[in-house]
């Protein structure tokens, strides 16, 4: 566990909301609250893992933090500056980049690897001539472990792991400080996952990067993250240091989540009692009133159905959004 409390956070997310208007039919519109009021800080050099079920808004959160969607409300403060308006967003694009989930659809099949990696440089006019561009691209390819002979090839000639390396090289092209990794390894097989994860860690060490690591594979997140944030239905339900959250989860949802982690050791696995949640995750279109988790929570009371719990600091550095967090543990 690193001691990052004293340093100024690199990225601050304050009350970020991302709603989508859905047009169904001619006149009726519905509001989909993909991300509903989340706040957190990420310190320089740390990795914050963001976990949750499919459809809980992890990816949307990552994208609106990068201003790929215009947030409905809330602030993103990067390096002390609020991201707002064209000029700050343009500068922000250079400092904050993204690695995508699907290494197949995130690379344009009509472009060569060197053009894909060089795209951010071209778009932001960061290189003055072709020789410099080529040098930077080859340097990036070297950093992510790609052979320079591959520069002229097309993405479809590579395996999934190599493609993901291309995607990472692209994210590194503008010399960013902060990278949103949107499930970067979930489309890869396990042995390749390990390689890519190790590469992420190495790059972080060498380049002083800060990651927001979005994933649903808890083992991966546990391995790479300094702190973990858990999302449920667009809300942040728990945020704490990795060890704390993995050993002693406080929120009932996190507990269920952690108990579902597959254990490689069968003895440990048998000893672990799995908390099975009943029911499905509710549709974010019809989010339940009160605590979003009360429909599936084994500890829910009437109060949970009525009022929404706030994300409160229950211990130092531990934030939990549950009325009964202290009672049930």
């Amino acid at each position, binding site marked *: 566990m690193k001691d990052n409390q004293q340093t100024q956070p690199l990225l601050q997310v304050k009350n970020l909301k991302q709603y989508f208007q859905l047009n169904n039919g001619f006149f009726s519109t519905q509001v989909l609250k993909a991300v509903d009021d989340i706040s957190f800080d990420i310190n320089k050099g740390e990795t914050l893992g963001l976990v949750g079920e499919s459809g809980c808004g992890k990816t949307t959160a990552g*994208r609106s933090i*990068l201003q*790929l969607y215009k947030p409905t409300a809330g602030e993103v403060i990067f390096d002390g500056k609020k991201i707002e308006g064209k000029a700050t967003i*343009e500068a922000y*694009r*250079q400092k904050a*980049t*993204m690695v*995508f*989930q*699907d290494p197949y*659809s*995130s*690379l*344009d*099949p*009509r*472009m060569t690897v060197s053009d*894909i990696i060089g*795209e*951010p440089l071209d*778009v*932001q006019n960061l290189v003055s001539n072709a020789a410099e561009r080529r040098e930077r691209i080859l340097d990036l390819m070297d950093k992510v472990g790609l052979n320079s002979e591959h520069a*002229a*090839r*097309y993405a479809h*000639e590579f395996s999934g792991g190599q493609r993901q390396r291309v*995607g990472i090289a*692209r994210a590194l*092209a*503008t010399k960013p400080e902060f990278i949103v990794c949107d499930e970067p390894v979930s489309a890869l097989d396990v042995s390749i996952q390990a390689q890519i994860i190790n590469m992420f860690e190495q790059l972080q060490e060498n380049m002083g990067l800060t990651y927001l690591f979005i994933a649903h594979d808890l083992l991966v997140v546990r391995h790479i993250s300094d702190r973990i944030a858990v999302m449920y239905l667009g809300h942040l339900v728990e945020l704490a240091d990795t060890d704390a959250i993995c050993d002693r989860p406080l929120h009932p949802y996190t507990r269920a989540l952690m108990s579902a982690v597959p254990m490689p050791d069968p003895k440990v696995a048998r000893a672990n009692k799995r908390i099975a949640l009943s029911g499905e995750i509710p549709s974010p279109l019809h989010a339940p009133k009160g605590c979003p988790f009360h429909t599936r929570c084994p500890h829910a009371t009437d109060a949970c159905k009525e009022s929404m719990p706030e994300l409160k600091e229950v211990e130092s550095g531990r934030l939990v959004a549950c009325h009964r967090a202290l009672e049930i543990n």
Partner: protein
Amino acid sequence: MSEEAKKEGQSVPENVAPASLTAADFAPADEKEKEYMVKMRPQTTAFKDGIRRLRKNKVAMVSFWVIVLITLCALIIPIFWPYQYEAMLGMTPGKPVDASFQNLKPMTYSATELTRIEAGEKVFPHLFGTDSSGRDYFIRVVYGTRISLAVGFFASLIVLVIGLLVGAISGYAGGKVDLVIMRIVDIIYSLPDMLMVILLATVLKQAIGDSLEGTVLARIGSNIISLFIVFALLYWVSMARLVRGQILSLREQEYVLAAQAAGAKGSWVIRKHLIPNCVSVIVISTALQIPSAIFTESYLSFLGLGVNAPMPSLGSLASDALNGITSYPYRLVIPAIVISLIVLSLNLFGDGLRDAFDPKLNG
């Protein structure tokens, strides 16, 4: 048999026996071998693959060479042919009209030419005879082909440019812009094609006829210009729809999001990602647009709305031939065959292109 089996049984283990392997067999590949192995798997692109598939398609290749042949003929023959398409043979200013030049059958000569041949002069034959004004019919067909092809290519080009632009903007912008553009497209779609073409061609002929005097465009003729305008106004809609549909599906791809995350603007995304990825569909539908443009030009010319006289087009030649259809049926048959040949081979080639470059489109 048992002896043979025995022999083989003995010889097989001998071949793969570990004893026969030496250290040299495990030596790393030298440069020459490496080069050979690299050559084993040549780099391919989607484009090269497409060309390879196209080459295998015999029908498409035959059609392709037919188009090339017809185009070359239409371009080259008028250069050295001794007759002009607009020259009325037997008509010399200040002299009475030599009627023997008119309505010649194929490969026959007029009375004047026969006397010249008897005098030992060489006279170039009229391959397809002459028409009722004494103009060499072969050169008129060749010239008509040239006009028809030119109209086909340029009209498709206009359709391509407008359709691509409108479709790309509509698909990429989405929302209200898309809604408005698509309603306009729907309106144009719902108008009866043929009626609109005829009305527009008639009106435009009047409207722009005079203003062209003295300009370069006068040589092309007001009718062809109005034809192009008709194409520009009406026929872009299907191309626009096609491109929009493609772009709608492509813009959801993650690489578009990646470009946006890098700070790319709309025009960059359209130019670098969206259009290159739907180029095969565009090329194919343009190739299929050419014959339809040629066909439209032909029927407009047939109705008297096509090219200005004396310029021939395949349609106007067929139309003129109607007057003497009982005596000179070949004058209708020849341009009709040429039209059919062009349209058929362009269509077949377009189909071949589609099969080769976009297997998904093939329904």
